[in-house]
């Protein structure tokens, strides 16, 4: 087993990986940028190496500096987390070349699955159902128009190098196709330095269903059941659950086999996720493989009892996967809510700033993978994920009830989060009925505002706080209003 691992990431996911390393008796190295000198991953690691300026290109994306940090500290392996360099084939290759174990699949697998049209072709060859569409990029307008006619409108334009919804367009009719292709290619080119696009049949109201895969390099491969991630805003997941309310045991069996087939087809090693779209008629289509630890892996851990990060490390260290598909059984129901720094009343616009106060929920069936603390300044440079709240219950209703109670008790003052929005989603009839499709937020929650039914209580709190404030002023000689705590003044960047 490794003696020391460098975690090339930040915040909640770095902390989560550090926890498992420590439990395995493995030494840990964190890396950090100027903005993260007091971030949780720096506090939790045995050693921490400063990379550079806050901008990701100067820190968490700077391959040379991360490699140097690993060599300097004697780390034997690198865990990339998700985002940043996690699906960067060059980084994986560089690690391999420098004698560092990259905790993830080999560079060639990352690359093969990173190109969407290549991945589609591989799946078709191996009998995995894909969305009807093109298997290579195309730029000729006439060819594109012919393909669209064959598929039937609506069609979806996608970028071959795509991700995050960039270069994606839904086209409803032939006369809009040309303009949309030009615009999508231009956006893809700006985002990925690669303007290649292709067409797929557009599926209306699908569900997003994915399977967690574990594979060692010795031919052992299992899936750890599905996750449904249909509740999204800005093409980004915010609520995930397992099991999916849409899967029958028979469909789960078939999709699980397809997921394993997809992973086998690409020669997959380590943990990965095979994503599908499921249409209302129960047909499913391969979407892509995420060649990394997924944000939402905790719900799988709670339902299967398996520590995915521990397995990743064991596989990377060459240990065989001592799990059979028959041993893997889901128990109960788990839901994850992503807690982002964002304002759900302002189109989910990011809300960086200083955490003035925080109260974390805890108790039976609650897990909170948390990357912040009171006093921490949430940097403006990185993804706005603050924490992931996970609730596990005996069944879906119990898990929903538990999550609602936990959200109600989760208090973060100083920045906005989507907690009130998440509560309304979980309380909605559509969610409770399991009618979770990727258009869920648009269909049920466009222009959402919270129902503010407790204004009177809020005013009473205002008054009671005033009275308490005066009492405190007398006692301490401090001015009324926000209490200055020393650690609120320690940072370099204040609101």
């Amino acid at each position, binding site marked *: 087993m490794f003696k020391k691992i460098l975690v090339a990431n930040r915040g909640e996911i770095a902390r989560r990986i550090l926890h498992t390393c420590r439990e395995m008796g493995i030494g840990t190295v964190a890396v950090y940028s100027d903005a993260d000198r007091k971030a949780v991953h720096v506090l939790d690691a045995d050693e921490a190496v400063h990379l550079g300026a806050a901008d990701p290109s100067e820190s968490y994306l700077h391959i040379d500096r991360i490699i140097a940090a690993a060599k300097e500290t004697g780390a034997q392996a690198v865990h990339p987390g998700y985002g940043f360099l996690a699906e960067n084939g060059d980084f994986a290759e560089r690690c391999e070349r420098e004698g560092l174990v990259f905790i993830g699949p080999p560079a060639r697998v990352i690359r093969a699955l990173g190109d969407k049209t290549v991945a589609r072709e591989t799946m078709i060859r191996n009998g995995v159902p894909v969305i009807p569409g093109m298997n290579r990029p195309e730029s000729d307008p006439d060819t594109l128009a012919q393909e669209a006619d064959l598929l039937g409108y609506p069609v979806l334009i996608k970028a071959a190098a795509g991700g995050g919804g960039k270069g994606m367009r839904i086209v409803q009719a032939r006369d809009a196709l040309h303009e949309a292709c030009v615009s999508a290619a231009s956006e893809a080119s700006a985002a990925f330095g690669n303007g290649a696009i292709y067409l797929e049949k557009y599926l209306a109201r699908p569900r997003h269903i994915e399977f967690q895969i574990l594979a060692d390099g010795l031919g052992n491969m299992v899936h750890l059941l599905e996750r449904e991630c249909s509740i999204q805003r800005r093409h980004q997941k915010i609520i995930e659950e397992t099991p999916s309310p849409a899967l029958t045991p028979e469909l789960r069996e078939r999709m699980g086999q397809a997921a394993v087939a997809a992973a086998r087809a690409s020669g997959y090693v380590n943990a990965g996720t095979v994503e599908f779209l499921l249409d209302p008629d129960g047909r499913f289509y391969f979407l892509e493989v995420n060649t990394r630890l997924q944000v939402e892996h905790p719900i799988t851990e709670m339902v299967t009892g398996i520590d995915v990060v521990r397995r990743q490390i064991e596989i990377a260290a060459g240990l065989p996967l001592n799990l059979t598909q028959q041993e893997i059984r889901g128990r109960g129901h788990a839901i994850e809510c992503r807690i982002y720094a964002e304002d759900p009343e302002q189109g989910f616009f990011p809300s*960086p700033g200083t955490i003035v106060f925080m109260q974390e929920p805890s108790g039976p069936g609650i897990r909170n993978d948390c990357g912040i603390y009171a006093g921490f300044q949430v940097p*403006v440079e990185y993804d706005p994920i603050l924490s992931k709240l996970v609730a596990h219950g005996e069944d879906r209703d119990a898990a929903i009830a538990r999550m609602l109670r936990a959200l109600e008790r989760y208090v973060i*003052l*100083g920045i906005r989060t989507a907690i009130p929005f998440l509560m309304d989603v979980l309380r909605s009839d559509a969610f409770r009925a399991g009618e979770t499709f990727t258009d869920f937020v648009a269909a049920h929650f466009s222009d959402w505002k919270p129902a503010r039914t407790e204004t*009177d*209580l809020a005013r009473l*709190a*205002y008054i009671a*706080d005033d009275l308490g404030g005066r009492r405190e002023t007398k006692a301490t000689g401090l001015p009324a209003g*926000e209490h200055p705590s020393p650690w609120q003044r320690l940072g370099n960047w204040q609101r």
Partner: protein
Amino acid sequence: MQYRFKTDEDAAVWTVDPEGTDRLTVTTGTQTLHVRHGAVSPHHLHLAVDGLGVNTFVLRGDGEKTVVIRGVPYPVQDADFAERKTKKKADRENLPQVITPPMPSVVVRIPVSEGDRVCKGQAVIVLTAMKMETTLTSPFPGRVTKVNVAAGEKVMPGRILVDIEKEAETDAPDEGR
């Protein structure tokens, strides 16, 4: 004592009678509430209103507090203060509008230079926060007299990023009047 709270229309006037350090009686006009209150921590107040308990979390601002109750944030404003502030805000909106970020951000690009003429709606600065980009535009036709920031700089709401001198609207009639 009296409180005037800002409402959507006007102000709600509440009469407050404190009793000791942990009790209040409040008359809102429509009802009388008996409240027990206690500070659990500097931001956490527990209230019992006519016997029903609730935890409230208070963030203090300037004449305004945000109170979080059962996960939902409520902005509560003192009406007198709010009036002054609204006036100030209105002043700001009527007077030369300024280029300032809506939230803490980082400057990505500044597509104009000092001395440039700009039209109303022309992009003058591109900001990013947490991987989302937003573009600030000139509120009127004018001339860029000063660029106060550089690409890569962190900027806070209120800071004026670019000074623009208003010029006669020769390109298009001003429809705002």
